[in-house]
């Protein structure tokens, strides 16, 4: 499986092509350059992280890939077609779980099925299976407010997966969770990704989370938001939590930190 993916990664036709993308927001105090000249090719089935401080444009870029925001200059294409609105086969997970309080866990997961008029019975099975897989089998008929933060975010992930999307965009999905729950969900996400071969773009500001999960990390800086360096992570899969204690992991961490430092991300340490 690992070999197959490497083959795909080195393929010629990228699944997602981000070419010279910039984003300028108009604000009352003048235009804000949120992202400048971002170029990146992503292969089908690849796990790519956008890693950087707040204001580096990582969420903006994710939204543009998801067709929720327009590019100011440049172009983004998915499977050869330019992005024009949210594409078919898209799943999104946000930092907030945005579960709907009036729906049960199962009904929340079924929301995309209802919105897209997909076959109800078939997806109900899939939703139930997914929720069981994420350890929520006993909570199908509970309401969101009865769950813990980690469980709620698991429901949000199931909701993104229920239509079996080929592209998963995740905007700091585990940013609001405690460290242990976060580790757990990192492993569960890796499992899902390895089994399904989805393309995942993962926004985070955690260096270790990015190294742990990604095939490649796109290191970014702010003011203006930009790509600095793209780092390939060469750990075999499946990765365990123990990988974080290896010297290689420390090397990657050091490298990212040094990139951040030389680009003024850690102002405090320099002062």
């Amino acid at each position: 499986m690992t070999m197959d993916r490497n083959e795909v990664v080195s393929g010629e036709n990228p699944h997602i092509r981000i070419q010279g993308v910039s984003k300028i927001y108009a604000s009352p105090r003048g235009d804000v350059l949120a992202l400048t000249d971002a170029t990146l090719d992503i292969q089908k089935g690849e796990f790519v992280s956008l890693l950087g401080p707040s204001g580096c444009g990582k969420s903006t870029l994710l939204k543009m890939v998801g067709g929720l925001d327009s590019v100011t200059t440049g172009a983004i294409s998915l499977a050869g077609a330019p992005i024009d609105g949210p594409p078919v086969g898209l799943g999104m997970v946000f930092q907030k779980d945005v579960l709907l309080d009036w729906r049960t866990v199962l009904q929340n997961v079924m929301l995309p099925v209802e919105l897209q008029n997909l076959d109800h019975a078939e997806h109900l099975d899939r939703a139930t299976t997914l929720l069981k897989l994420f350890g929520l089998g006993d909570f199908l008929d509970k309401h969101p407010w009865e769950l813990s933060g980690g469980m709620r975010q698991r429901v949000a992930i199931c909701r993104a997966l229920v239509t079996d999307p080929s592209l998963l965009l995740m905007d700091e999905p585990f940013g609001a969770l405690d460290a242990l729950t976060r580790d757990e969900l990192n492993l569960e996400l890796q499992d899902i990704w390895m089994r399904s071969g989805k393309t995942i773009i993962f926004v985070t500001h955690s260096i270790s989370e990015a190294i742990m999960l990604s095939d490649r990390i796109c290191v970014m800086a702010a003011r203006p938001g930009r790509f600095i360096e793209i780092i390939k992570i060469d750990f075999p899969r499946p990765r365990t939590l123990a990988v974080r204690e290896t010297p290689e992991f420390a090397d990657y961490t050091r490298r990212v930190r040094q990139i951040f430092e030389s680009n003024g991300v850690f102002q405090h340490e320099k002062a």
Partner: protein
Amino acid sequence: MRKLDVPSWLREPPSWLVLTSLLVLWQVATWVFKPAPFLLPDPISVGRALIANPTMYLVNAYYTTANTLIGFGLSVIIGFGLALGIVYSRFLESTVYTTLVAINSMPKVALAPLFVVWMGTGNTSKIAMAFLIAIFAIVIDAVLGLRTLDTEIVDLGRSMRGSPLKLLWKIRLPNALPSLFAGMKVAIGLSLVGVLVGEFVSAQHGLGYVIMAAQGAFDTPRVFVAILLLSVLGTLLFKSLEFIERRVIPWHVSQRAVSH
């Protein structure tokens, strides 16, 4: 120091006990101070006035209730429709909403005599008053509810490629319900006030009419019966809405303590 052993009914007296005590206090006060009956009648003579002619009160209460409910119902239907238009159309927002907010700042009871001139002394002018006075609360709270949606929820809905109608029905509408109920709970009381004002100006029946007629005859016990019936009516209307609310939005924060 040990805490005093106060029984629970005294620490947190139930509402029936409070109300009964007030009635008893009122009765005793009238015995002691002996005010002129046309100024302040005692509860027993108010009770006698009610028992003397219960059908008359019932019929008049019926007119007031029916007109209140019709006016309120119309304000909910039309008000919510307007709110939808305002939320989805920039044009309606800058025309209808602006006009509504402007009209809202004037005291609407001042229009009651005009309505009687326009629509006569029958039920229509009362329903119109109830409607006019209630619709603002509906529109303003419904607009608020329809607009208050996390940007993440909006993005989520769009990422799922839902049609605008489906997004409205499955996300925006349920999300607006708590706010709509808040508006309705204000509006139901306002509707009753609207009908009453209409009945004060000119009417052939209704509890407001009973009050005006009895006042003309210095029959203060009858005024008191009508006032008591109006407060019972107001409470019943409000409680019925709360009852419906508990069944429609049991998931909302405000209802959870009740439903669990």
